[in-house]
Each structure stands twice: as C-alpha cells, then as structure tokens.
C-alpha cells in the first residue's frame, strides 16, 4: 500500500515502484475510473494495438458490418444455417 499527497491543484504523484511495475512513464495517459473507489489504469495507445493486430488482416477484406450482420455471421457460424 502506498500513500501520496494531493496538491492544491489536485495533482498526485504515482510512487516510483508502481510506475516501474506498470511501465508508466512521463507523458503516458491514464484513465481514472469512479467505481466507488478511484481506480487508475494505464491507457493503451490504439496505434500499438493495431500494430499488434496486423497479423489478423493478411489476406482478408475489411469486414463492414451492416444491419447487425456481425451478429448474424456469429450465429450462423456457431449454430449453423438451416
């Protein structure tokens, strides 16, 4: 458990061991969630998410969902077509 003081401007410092543990560096954006207590989570850059996912795109046309056909495709795949 760590303690940190809130400044008059409302800012806090994240203790160094936690920054190190969660890979938080200057300039990172974190999300604060109000769920009865305040949870701080590191936000992931979406460009790095896309880079990680590039392997799934090879040889596939972009899927453009229309009229809920994402659901239809899944239901047909899971339960079969009559």
């Amino acid at each position: 458990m760590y303690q940190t003081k809130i400044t008059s401007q409302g800012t806090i410092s994240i203790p160094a061991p936690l920054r190190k543990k969660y890979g938080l560096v200057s300039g990172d954006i974190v999300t604060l969630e109000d769920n009865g207590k305040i949870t701080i989570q590191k936000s992931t850059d979406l460009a790095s998410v896309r880079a990680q996912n590039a392997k799934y795109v090879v040889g596939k046309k972009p899927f453009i969902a229309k009229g809920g056909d994402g659901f239809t495709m899944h239901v047909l795949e899971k339960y079969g077509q009559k």
Partner: protein
Amino acid sequence: MAKNKSGSLDTNILLRLIVGDVPEQTAVIETLLTEATVLQVADIAIFETVLVLQSYYQFSREDIYGSLTAIVRHPKINCNHRLFEQAFTLYRQYPKLSLVDCALTLYAELNNASPLYTFDKDLAKSLANTQALS
C-alpha cells in the same frame, strides 16, 4: 471538423480502430478522437465488435481482451466501464465462456438480480451468481 465534438461510435468505427485495415478511415477516426471531448459507445456495439473479431478476423481471446480494454479505457471513450472492465476480465479468465455469458452474469449482479438462471452447465460451474436449471 469542429473541435470539442461529441457523439457515438458504431461497430465499424471500433473495427477500424482495432484492426486498421482501412487506413484512410482509421485516420479519420483518429482525428475525430483527437478533436472530440467524449464519444459514447453502446454495449451492443462492443458485443458486435467482439463477435466480428472472433468469427471473421479469428482473433485470439488474449488479443480481443487487449484490444477491447484499450477501447474501454480510452480517455475519450465513454461506455459501460463498470460492466466491461469486469466482463473482459472474466472473458480472459474463462476460455469456455463467451463475452455474452460473462456480461449476462454481471448484468444480473450489477442490477441486484442474481442468480442468472441458465441451462448452460459450463457457465453455472464457472461463475458464482449463476444457477443451472435441469
């Protein structure tokens, strides 16, 4: 495009943000995210996105978890955080359960309407707050 915009995002927007397979559309959405104050994402858009990633793009469960938590935690995106933070954690933890199974159990819990009655024995065995009917 005017700054400080707000609005909502549909399934295709989420897909392009996660998959990036239409680069010009991804660029438009990134600009929108930069300029918007907050953008809403409905529960149903998140469910459809997961189904498409799973069925069409054949994403692994771990990559679905990583991609969707990045969306849910994005500072400009407002969605049902309370549900999805927990639902994606369960989805990652229990490979036999679908996101829908996990979310239904949590909807019941968050709405003080547990247990979730089901015929799905895998679900009932895996999660508390569920009860199998025979």
